[in-house]
């Protein structure tokens, strides 16, 4: 039998919620371990090795030293997979990209602000080549297993290319806009089953923009049709989608 592929987990600026989702797979994680060898997962194991095939990277890149570390990971791994919104699209950390950098540091660190090298938060793919992404905040455990299986079989994993609204309709939810509320499902990539809407909340956009999402049309729906202010729309769009060239 061929040796098991070695997989490793690494984290940058993030909340480790995605690694937690992996740990939360419980028995399914033990099943996965029949097929792969876990060599690096600081959150759950002390042993660590620099010899790995697949590197799962969580969190966004916010400092020069993070870049060095990520490039090193890239040079050792055959495949680099971005895990979660922070790594895949920049995530909530990008909210600070819309604020004055020095001001952000001063608010939290006062007179010592200068001691903190931080720059605009960015996703992993802004620094190195990324082979696949598992979006979400946090990731969906089932999607993690599916993508990992596809990688192990040598197939390029694909993500749904339709927006959350498609799954929201399938889930039988009443549209938030019908209730006079704002929702980003119209431009967000599906794959989560519209889980937030089903729980009474709305889509925050954590899976990133759906391919070909039309921001102009979305703004028309949100501002002109539904009557939300520019700032309300902007706050929601800047929560997860901050790392983009699109004017948010």
């Amino acid at each position: 039998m061929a040796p098991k592929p070695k997989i490793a987990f690494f984290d940058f600026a993030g909340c480790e919620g995605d690694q937690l989702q992996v740990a939360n797979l419980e028995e399914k994680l033990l099943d996965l371990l029949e097929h792969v060898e876990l060599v690096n997962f600081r959150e759950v194991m002390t042993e660590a090795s620099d010899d790995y095939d697949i590197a799962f990277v969580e969190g966004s890149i916010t400092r020069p030293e993070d870049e060095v570390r990520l490039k090193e990971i890239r040079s050792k791994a055959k495949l680099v997979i971005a895990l979660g919104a922070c790594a895949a699209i920049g995530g909530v950390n990008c909210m600070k990209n819309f604020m004055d950098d020095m001001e952000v540091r001063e608010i939290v660190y006062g007179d010592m602000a200068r001691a903190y090298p931080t720059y605009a938060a960015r996703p992993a793919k802004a620094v190195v080549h990324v082979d696949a992404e598992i979006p979400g905040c946090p990731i969906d455990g089932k999607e993690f297993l599916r993508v990992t299986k596809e990688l192990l079989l040598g197939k390029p994993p694909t993500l749904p290319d339709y927006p959350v609204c498609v799954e929201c309709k399938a889930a039988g939810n009443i549209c938030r806009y019908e209730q006079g509320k704002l929702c980003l499902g119209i431009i967000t990539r599906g794959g989560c089953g519209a889980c937030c809407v089903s729980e009474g909340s709305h889509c925050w956009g954590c899976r990133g923009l759906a391919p070909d999402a039309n921001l102009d049309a979305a703004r028309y729906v949100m501002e002109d049709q539904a009557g939300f202010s520019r700032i309300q729309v902007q706050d929601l769009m800047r929560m997860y989608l901050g790392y983009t060239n699109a004017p948010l």
Partner: protein
Amino acid sequence: MSAKKATAKTKKAAPKAAPVMGKRVEVKHISRVEGHGNIVVEIDAKNKVKACRWEVPEAPRFFEAMILGKSYTQIHQIVSRICGICSIGHQLCSIQATEDAMGIMVSDQTVRLRKLALHGENLQSHLLHVAYLALPDLMGVGSVIPLAQTHKKELLTLIGLHRMANEFSRATTGRTTHPQRLVPGGFTKVPTEAELRDMKKMLEDSIPGLEAASDLFASVVDKLPNFTRETEYVGLVSPAEYAMYWGEVGSTMDQARPAIYYKDITNEYMVPQSTAKWTKNKGESLMVGALARFNLNHKRLSPLAKGIARKLGLKAPCHNPYYNNLAQLVECAHSVEDSIRLIDEMLNSGIKSETEPKITPRAGKGVGAVEVPRGILFHAYEYDDRGRILNADCVIPTNQNHANIQKDFEALVPTLVDEDEATIELKTSMLVRAYDPCISCSTHFVDMTSAREERRLVKFVRVDD
């Protein structure tokens, strides 16, 4: 490498007759904790401790700045992302602060459901910690994975308990991580009566597993180092219950005070040799978390939890920080039993469907204080009249524990000078792990080189619509 192997190897490398060299232990990025922390211990050839430090190089994340100007409708979802493990606690604390600032009252049902949510998180987090992160040390292995071979039955019991905790949280809050049902004023969706009955059954069925887990821990309790250092224990206290969701801020050395005085209790300050802000009140440092709560509130634990404490030999006051792991297990039993009680109350009074409450924002300041798995958490906000944040301050449990970890190090390391590096590494790592630090939570850790630092609240000017 397992601890045993490491010890054997060090012994071989340094036979007794060899000249005594100094020892240096440097654990870069201690494993099985949340976030990045380092341990540095230096002992010279004359067995004098040259340095013992607990350092934190985690990337700062600036949440207190990022939420400035944001609307009260979004805050609890943003701050949830401070920590994946305590996401429910951060949301609840944030919501409390918002409700306090805007004078929002909530229903009894909401309070009960929130308490359930908090128990769910406590169970998730404590079980993850005692089973997956702390237990391997007691079994002499580097992770939980080898236990699948050697202790399959016990491991499956622990996995079953952890899965139950996740399932219970999901049924209460909509998701196990970064929940969606909690909002200022109440819930967007509540469990049905049938779901509550299922949850109750699930909790009841977990009790034999909890008993088995405590038997397992009772059998290895002597592997926890026998080390004590008296300190100040701080946590919520209430005459009505084992306080988790609300109460006053109590201390073993001080009078209890309402949460609005949180700054006077935590007194965040800087010291040159530390990476993080330290806190102190009456003592030279203070400890928050399961052991602190146990020391303050043990009389109000549920009967099952008291029984498990007896089985584990945990008695208040307990000054051994390693026993925090045992206090976590005791709290698991309490959370299960108290949740069953809360569910019974709801089933008796009948569950009412709730929709997202209507709130008219108003200007004001508010403080939230909630016991999360790692200790007391504070969020303090100031809102403008449109419900947008002007100032924010979050004081996270791990930050409060930092000085205490360092002081424990200073007391512990001199007792270890004759040990080999592997033992020093294991015992200091176990100490840090016992606190279950959640470093990515700590939104304002400070660089090693900073000599002084002062918090300044900057007025945020926003060009609004």
